[in-house]
């Protein structure tokens, strides 16, 4: 699992907000668990260790998993400060997320 700081989270936030509108962003742990295959999962570093381990295992099937200490930086644009886990479906939005992550040094 990789870590993202608040600035990096904020840089992804608007794309995730677009995904909330288009249905490509999945919000909440139970919704993320129900999703068949996701390109990305972003998780609050304050989640239970067991949950974080469960999410980390998803990397073995090709899902990139990131943790953030300041999770609100990621959810601020779409007003879901209650969320602790956000997923992105495989597809065009994930392509945009990939483009933005490539611009982040060390990610």
């Amino acid at each position: 699992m990789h870590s993202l700081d608040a600035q990096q989270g904020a840089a992804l936030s608007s794309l995730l907000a677009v995904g909330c509108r288009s249905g490509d962003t999945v919000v909440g742990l139970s919704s993320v668990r129900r999703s068949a295959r996701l390109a990305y999962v972003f998780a609050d570093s304050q989640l239970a260790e067991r949950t974080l381990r469960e999410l980390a295992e998803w990397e073995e099937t090709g899902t990139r998993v990131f943790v953030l200490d300041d999770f609100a930086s990621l959810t601020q644009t779409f007003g879901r400060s209650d969320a602790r886990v956000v997923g992105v479906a495989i597809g065009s939005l994930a392509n945009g997320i990939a483009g933005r992550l490539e611009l982040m040094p060390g990610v």
Partner: protein
Amino acid sequence: MATSTNIRCGVVGYGGAFNMGQTHLNSMARNRRMEVAAVCELDPDRRKVAESDFPGIETYAKVGDLLKNAALDLVTIITPHNTHAPLAIECLNAGVNVVCEKPLAITSREVKDMIAAAKRNKVMLSTFHNRRWDGDFQTLRDLICKEKAIGRVHRVEAGFYGYGPQGTWWRSDRKISGGAIYDWGAHFTDWILNIMPEKIDWVSGYQVKHRDWKGYSNEDHSEYSLRFASGALATLTISNLSMSGRPRWRVLGERGSIEDIGGKFQLKTAINGRQMSAEVPFAQSNWHAYYENVYKHLLGRAKLIITPDSAARVIGVLEAANQSAARNSAPVKPAFV
């Protein structure tokens, strides 16, 4: 501000077309302390309809009698466009808050007089741009202004397309209506100025009247180009002479584009060379939000969203489009930039 326990509301105009009087009063009545109190309408048959729609409501034939006897806090004017200014000023001078159906008025001179009357009498003036809460527009504005999905916008194309002669009534009489662009064009212009909150440089208008469609004076095709000081350009087309349609919205930005594809927007953007596209469904419309805001504003709990200044900019653009069209599309600087 309303000083009595309830905000007593009335409308001037209760005509049968689109039943707008009832629509306004119903929307007001959703707010707990907005009391539907009175209707002023010339037609006695329509006054009877109002009495049936709202049992116990006071009805008047003359605005002077309404203002003298109904003790209103808020009146909404739902009459032909060329009467908005004189009626609004009469109500404002009586110390009553005023909402005008769109357009606020026809000319910038009228708008200046209305705003001056509101300021002089320390009362509210607003326009019923309830479509600011249309689901498609809210989604479009959020994508552009909140999520900044396409970067700096340099081009907006908007329009409403159809084909066929207009009916013969006041809405198609240019002296009364202001022209075809003053109807849906008022909403579109309000939308455009909201997603492009920049200074306006000039407006160029272009209008066509079908040579064989008689019985009304409104043009059948009206469009304008609106150039902002930043260099961005918006075009609006309101046409009854357009058998081939175009998307209602197409917006181009430095990082992508947004196009209306019917019920949703197609967003295209590129990030670090990677193409991304998403289909974004329209949000739900909430037309009652207009009176919810007016209600809260009159109680001192919220800022007015549809301000007279924002409505004035709309009229400035429409007026400049008409003036330009009459001068072979020569650019005209609007009265409110």
